[in-house]
């Protein structure tokens, strides 16, 4: 195959392609979750995989989230490389002992004796009218647990590159998918060795005036806002920490040194969200002296996600919020 070959596909299909390639490459990779077999997963991500890999490797589970994750941890510690899907990220609440007290700590508390190579796929986010128990973005929890890694792709290519890297990684990797992105399509490299290294922040757009740091579904909104602002002559630089933990701050710090102004944005509730961590790291860095304006955090409202469509949309930063924040920073400039 021509290693530079690309194909247009959805984010959903790209995740599937990444998983499929890795399962072909390595027999130790198995995949577990609720209704991932014949149903193809609640969001169709695993559609058809059971036909290729059979019930031995595509394991439909009972509705037992704690045990899905605990079983993955135990399997990973003894030589398999499980992927598991939790139908909605909200239900990782059931699996926190297995993930946090067992999977994340096993290697350390056993003095390096073991490794836990597993991937936990977590469809997250609001926008589907599924209300408070099916719409959360809980990445901040996971990024507070040493021993875990956390990645989140924003494009189909990233989806493929990161799921493959996650499967090859020897640690528990939480792979957060945003439900609104499943249908987005774009070019994806077909190269089976196409990998996006875990631990890298990606520069999605270059600019000199303002830095926006964002990830997940907000990246698209930020990109749209940047395109709009470009017409006003404002050049926005956009950085995507596709690995949320451990986060690569270097490109972010460099960008802020260049632009002097920064917006940090995420969909998760503002208080206790990752935005605080990112802001703190910027302030602790060399970029502190270059800040020409206060840092702005754009984030979800501190409320559960409501059902009603308008209310739901009001909880999450939109394109217009990015534009307003940029204008605010430009206006507030203090030199």
């Amino acid at each position, binding site marked *: 195959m021509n290693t530079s070959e690309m194909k247009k596909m959805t984010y959903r299909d790209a995740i599937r392609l990444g998983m499929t390639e890795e399962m072909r490459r390595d027999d130790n990779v198995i995949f577990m979750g609720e209704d991932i077999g014949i*149903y193809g997963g609640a969001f169709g991500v695993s559609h058809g995989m059971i036909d290729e890999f059979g019930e031995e490797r595509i394991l439909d589970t009972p*509705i037992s989230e704690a045990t899905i994750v605990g079983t993955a941890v135990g399997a990973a510690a003894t030589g398999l490389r499980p992927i598991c899907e939790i139908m909605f990220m909200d239900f990782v609440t059931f699996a926190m002992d297995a993930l946090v007290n067992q999977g994340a700590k096993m290697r350390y508390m056993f003095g390096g004796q073991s490794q836990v190579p597993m991937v936990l796929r977590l469809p997250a986010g609001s926008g589907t*009218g599924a209300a408070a*128990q099916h719409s959360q973005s809980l990445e901040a929890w996971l990024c507070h647990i040493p021993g875990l890694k956390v990645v989140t792709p924003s494009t189909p290519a990233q989806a493929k590159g990161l799921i493959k890297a996650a499967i090859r990684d020897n640690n528990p990797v939480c792979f957060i998918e945003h439900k609104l992105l499943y249908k987005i399509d774009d070019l994806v490299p077909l190269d089976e060795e196409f990998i996006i290294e875990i631990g890298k922040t990606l520069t999605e757009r270059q600019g000199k005036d303002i830095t926006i740091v964002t990830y997940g579904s907000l990246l698209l909104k930020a990109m749209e806002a940047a395109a709009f602002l470009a017409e006003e002559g404002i050049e926005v630089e956009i950085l995507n920490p596709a690995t949320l933990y451990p986060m690569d701050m270097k490109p972010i710090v460099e960008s802020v040194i260049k632009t002097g102004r920064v917006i940090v944005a995420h969909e998760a509730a503002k208080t206790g969200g990752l935005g605080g961590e990112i802001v703190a790291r910027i302030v602790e860095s060399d970029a502190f002296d270059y800040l020409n304006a206060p840092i702005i955090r754009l984030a979800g409202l501190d409320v559960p996600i409501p059902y009603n469509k308008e209310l739901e949309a009001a909880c999450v930063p939109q394109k217009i919020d990015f534009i307003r924040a940029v204008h605010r920073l430009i206006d507030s400039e203090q030199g």
Partner: protein
Amino acid sequence: MIELSEEILLRMYYKMNQARFFEEKVDYLFSKGLVHGTAHLSIGQEASGVISCLALEKGDLVSMTHRGHAQAIGFGLDVNLMMAEFMGRARGYCKGKGGSMHIADVQNGNIGANGVVGGGFNLSCGAALTQKYKKTGKVVLCFAGDGATNQGSFHESLNLAAVWNLPIVFLIENNLYGMSSPISKNMNIENISERSGSYDIPGLTIDGNDPIEVYNTVLKALRYARAGRGPVLVEAKTYRYNGHSKGDAQVYRNEEEIAEWREKDPILRLKKYLQENRVFTDKQIQTMANEAHKSIETALKFAMESPEPEITSVLEDVYA
């Protein structure tokens, strides 16, 4: 068997029809793309959903599942407010913030539908603890699906309810599937009621499509719990005709199976019972169905006329 009054038979037939029409309307609204969000239909499960609630006494409580419309209607919720909630309107039970999966009427003892499979078991223990502690003489009816009985919370809650002797009836609507997964793939036992043995509490499996059997069994179970004898596990075997939720291609089952179950339809069953026992004339029966139907048209109208919630309400009701 308990002798049923005309009044209760009337309520049974009316409410089962109401539940069915309600959900047919929901299905229609989805098919027309008129609603943003999701809902789970229990068409075919009206005996287990509606009738079990009719066995409750005033003041008894109920905890519902994600597939809760029939349960709610059985409990006596107002279909106007339910429809408004489903449509995300300000006059809905939850002011448009909950939707189908979170319909509740807490003041009246309906502590809510639950979007989390297995989420209601331990909440129900708490509600039952309140009844026991306050000596109210009331019982909690806790609904769950077959799939939910594989959650850890099922085990923990039944055990707690057993050792604390809580007044609670766990009603498992076993519709043979959890989403695409046939129950036979997810547990090795045929009857979920066998799991009561782990807690030394009574366990019963019944024909969940037989309204009379559902009514009599739940009534007995409630009496047992009300008498302070502890929890009861009731499994009602039933079936959902529709997909799990919208967008379910139902590749996991075939048309014949659905057709077979349609033969056992609980509403037709009750109708036949009413006819055979000459409780009501055919005309009376038809009138009841018509009224149920009308109530749903009214509900839709009510919902459509209800305003959207004020945008500022997004910040309200986070804290008491």
